[in-house]
């Protein structure tokens, strides 16, 4: 199969789904003439014209407002918020409007929006361009958070998200845009809400997402080779609501769990995963669940600090050894 980048996979998803469904339109800062800060919306303006590909002013709340309002009218907006850190500027729209509209109005309206945004550390861009933000939205019933780790998933999940009738926050880890993988040329959708076993294993369940899936896979290979530890790596793909069944099924077999997430430890998605596993698989656990996270501090500028603060493969390996040796 053909190999393309994560970014091109997303771009292809937009091209193909917009061609298929004329309710879909794209808006955001610099998405039209420039094709997006990361190039994900490249070529859409030429193909679909200014009605369906809109450069907005630097107004995040208005971008979400347009998305919500248009969605209420039956369109399917795909809004780009350039960096996830800027979701702070339209937090109200997402939390109080998008997420609640369907419930608040007794199911009489839907809010099928996708908010794409670049998340994660590693870009040397410091405090306001490096955060992992999913935890800010974890406690907001009604929102769905999707986060692919491979080009294949990126394309299929973006299409799946656009077709989903719920408001979806779609996280694109900025260090993955340039990674490559096999992606079918035809249009396909992957289901929202399903995790995937990216690598089967018997001793330890590693649950990860986005860039941390790749750290986890690398560690799993190494530990398999060097220490005869067999790790199963689960890629959540949908962070909220997450796929409890797949996780619990794996934990029932391994009894040992390592959770890997790039956000600061306190209050990250890992906390919810750990609490759920405890609640539902207490007796299966052979060791305390280990959480691998960034330190509880902002993402600093100096590379030595950034690299130290976020989870490194060696942190994952250490956690795996800890659950095995417990």
């Amino acid at each position, binding site marked *: 199969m053909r190999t393309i980048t994560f970014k091109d996979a997303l771009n292809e998803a937009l091209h193909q789904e917009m061609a298929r469904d004329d309710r879909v*339109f794209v808006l955001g800062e610099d998405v039209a003439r420039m094709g997006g800060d990361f190039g994900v919306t490249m070529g859409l303006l030429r193909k679909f014209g200014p*009605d*369906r590909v*809109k450069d*907005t*002013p630097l*107004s995040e*709340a*208005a971008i*979400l*407002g*347009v*998305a*919500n*309002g*248009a*969605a*209420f*009218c*039956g*369109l399917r*907006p795909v809004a780009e918020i350039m960096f996830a850190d800027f979701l702070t500027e339209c937090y*109200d*729209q997402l939390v*109080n*409007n998008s997420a609640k*509209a*369907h*419930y*608040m*109005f*007794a*199911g*009489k*309206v*839907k809010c*099928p929006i996708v908010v794409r945004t670049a998340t994660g550390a590693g870009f040397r861009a410091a405090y306001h361009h490096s955060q992992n933000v999913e935890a800010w939205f974890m406690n907001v*019933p*009604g929102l*769905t958070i999707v986060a692919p780790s491979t080009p294949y998933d990126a394309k299929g999940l973006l299409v799946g998200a656009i077709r*989903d*009738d*719920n408001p979806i926050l779609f996280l694109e880890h900025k260090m993955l845009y340039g990674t490559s993988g096999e992606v079918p040329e035809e249009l396909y959708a992957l289901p929202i*809400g399903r995790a995937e076993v990216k690598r089967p294993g018997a001793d330890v369940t590693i649950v990860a997402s986005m860039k941390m899936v790749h750290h986890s896979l690398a560690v799993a290979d190494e530990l398999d080779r060097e220490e005869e530890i067999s790790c199963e790596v689960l890629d959540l793909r949908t962070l909220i*609501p997450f796929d409890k069944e797949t996780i619990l099924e794996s934990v029932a077999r391994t009894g040992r769990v390592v959770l890997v997430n790039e956000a600061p430890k306190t209050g990250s998605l890992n906390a919810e995963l750990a609490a759920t596993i405890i609640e539902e698989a207490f007796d299966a656990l052979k060791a305390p669940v280990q959480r691998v996270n960034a330190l509880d501090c902002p993402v600093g500028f100096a590379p030595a600090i950034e690299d130290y603060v976020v989870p490194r493969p060696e942190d994952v390996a250490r956690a795996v050894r800890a659950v095995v040796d417990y």
Partner: protein
Amino acid sequence: MTVPKEQLLDFYRKMVLVRRFEETVEEYSKKGYVPGFIHLGVGQEAAQVGAMASFQEGDYVLPDHRSHGVCLMVGTPVTEVLAEIFGKTTGCNKGRGGSMHIADFARGNVGNNAIQGSTLVTACGLAVASQIRRTGAVTFIFFGDGTVGRGEFHESLNLAGVWKLPIVYVLVNNGYAISTRATDAHPLEDLAEMGCAYNIPGVTVDGNDVEAVCAAVGEAAERARRGEGATIVELKTYRWQGHFSGDPASYRPEEEVRAWKERCPLKATRKKLIDRKWATAEEIAAIDAAVEKEIQEAVQFAVDSPTPTEKDAVAHVYVGREVAGK
């Protein structure tokens, strides 16, 4: 401006309806039938009725927290609006929204959001949808002098200005945001003038003169329908009661309240009808009585309607995904 006789009679009937509706809500609130707190529009009937005279089928309206009257003007049955405020399953949102979240999508009422200012950007989305689909629909957004303080006011008007969005900004200036005088919150006296920053015309009219309101909003709506973009129409009026029902409103002088009550929009319209010999005192009394009957029937309906049950609680959090109850 003078509207035709039939229209003025219709305005009068509607203003009486709104007035009696609000008084009834207050009465039943005191009797314990209305959960939560309510914001009454007594005194603002001419603004609500006059502005909504230009609302046509296919248009959108975003009422605000003090907009029971606007909701009625959309055509939602009085019974359904009252039942909603009472929190009954027969309400237009099945008792799920209440006073601050009354929507009727089928009739173009996209509902309020109790975060002041939030809907200002939703309005852009409704307008963009009608632009993309070339439906000619106009979006009416109601908001108060206080809400002008929010950042979304700017993001909305800036976008509306640059995209020439078909929006009528109905700025209901009743002089206060809770206890804060409009003149203490904004550096201009006539807030419609703020349109100057956005190349959007602004017009300020006597919000208690239903004919003046109808004319100004009508012109703005026509401009929008012609594709010439948005207008701010500021309606100067006053709320007779406190901010919410029960607020003693001791932050404002008795004298001011008295003077504004003198300028009662219903009284003024009654006088016009009599002066122009368009109605006799008896005919007016007949209108009042007919409204009264409608109100009392609605009360009976709302009182008799069932309340939601616990199992309604987890419906509609997501489209197509269940949430567990207790």
